[in-house]
């Protein structure tokens, strides 16, 4: 991923750029393949709604952070680059939190501490360090959005199954019909505890590898 410094114009969505966006959804998925950001997946996927808002917030923070670091990349002193990255991420997260509090107060009430947790999401810093520091703003933006989306779909999938089987609801609405309970069906309380999130992620990784044989490490 070396910098493309020659002056020829590259199309905004050239095949190479498209790859930046789509690869993290599958082959380079930050959670399934790189196993990053697991902590937040365990913490906030009890209910689908929180997962959705978290996903949107991460997309916003990650896209912006990648662009900002990419714009600054030639000025950042290498010795303090981690501190600079962290400052940028933390400021963006605080801004997102303030904006949510002012304009979508209910959503911000629901997310409470989770917004702050975005700072600790290692995927964001991983992408700043691995990509934005060496690349131009536009590819960095695509890379940020792509990785955030790759994180988001796994988050939503885990949130979906945990809420469905753990509480029998989706987005807070009952979806398991009453007669199922009368026939003896019970919500699985274990699903709302963090260990089941890990197992759910494990199952998703399993299915993912089954579908995409390239990911299987044969050695």
């Amino acid at each position, binding site marked *: 991923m070396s910098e493309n410094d020659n002056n020829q114009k590259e199309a905004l969505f050239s095949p190479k750029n498209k790859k930046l966006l789509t690869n993290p959804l599958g082959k380079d998925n930050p959670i399934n393949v790189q196993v990053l950001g697991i902590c937040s997946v365990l913490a*906030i996927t*009890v*209910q689908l709604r*929180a997962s959705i808002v978290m996903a949107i917030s991460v997309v916003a923070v990650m896209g912006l952070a990648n662009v900002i670091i990419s714009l600054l990349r030639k*000025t*950042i*002193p*290498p*010795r*303090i680059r981690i*501190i*600079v990255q962290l*400052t940028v991420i933390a*400021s963006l997260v*605080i*801004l997102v939190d*303030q*904006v949510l*509090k*002012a*304009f979508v*107060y*209910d959503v911000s*009430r629901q997310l*409470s*501490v989770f917004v702050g947790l975005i700072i600790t999401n290692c995927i964001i810093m991983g992408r700043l360090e691995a990509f934005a520091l060496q690349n131009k703003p536009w590819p960095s933006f695509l890379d940020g959005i792509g990785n955030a989306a790759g994180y988001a779909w796994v988050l939503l999938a885990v949130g979906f199954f945990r*809420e469905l089987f*753990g*509480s029998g609801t989706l987005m807070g609405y009952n979806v398991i019909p009453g007669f199922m309970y009368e026939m003896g069906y019970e919500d699985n*309380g274990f699903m*709302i*505890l963090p260990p089941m999130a890990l197992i759910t992620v494990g199952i998703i990784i399993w299915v993912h590898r089954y579908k995409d044989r390239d990911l299987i490490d044969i050695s």
Partner: protein
Amino acid sequence: MTNRYIFLYASAMVVIVALVLSGAATLLRPIQERNMRMEKMQNILAAIDIPASRDEAEELFNQYFTVTKIVDHRGEELEGDAFEVELQEENRKPVEERQLPVFIADVDGETFYVVPVRGSGLWGAIWGYVGLESDVKTIAGANFDHASETPGLGAEISGESFENQFRGKKIFDEDSNFRPVRVVKGGAPDDDPHAVDGISGGTITSDGVTDMLRNGLEVYKPYFEKIKSS
């Protein structure tokens, strides 16, 4: 890159970030504070079962809650605006110095008393409002909220299915002794007017609610007794 550059870079970065963040905080503060006021009104209304959207909250609050007052631990009235009292600050003071807000509603001729309570759950603060009927013994409704309890577990205290259990429960027993509502792990007996079901997996939060109700309502005891005797 020289050390000088690094120092300048870091200093400039800190100054810029500080300006941007404090600017954003200052600009957004009035909107955020309005949201919080509305939410507080909404929660107080919810404690006597008046559903209100955020936008209606102010109008409905002013319509029903015609009297608000501050009392002390002996039940004597104090000067001040009850709505502005922060329970978090008051709970740090010794009981004798606390200002205790009471919101009194008149709903179609019937009087309701709403008092705030505050305590701690597993991860952080929990708080809420308890609405009492005119006999200051029967709970008309309760509304709870939390800072950071676990979603799906402790956080369920702010869910309707938990809050609705409090309706009709008593905080004084038949001999007029103070006996607040307990949250019981594994389920409360059906006929116990002083207990509600706890939340599976949320035991520490449930215990927090029990403590919060005991501590929070006990300080109002003299005031309630004054109302009863008048």
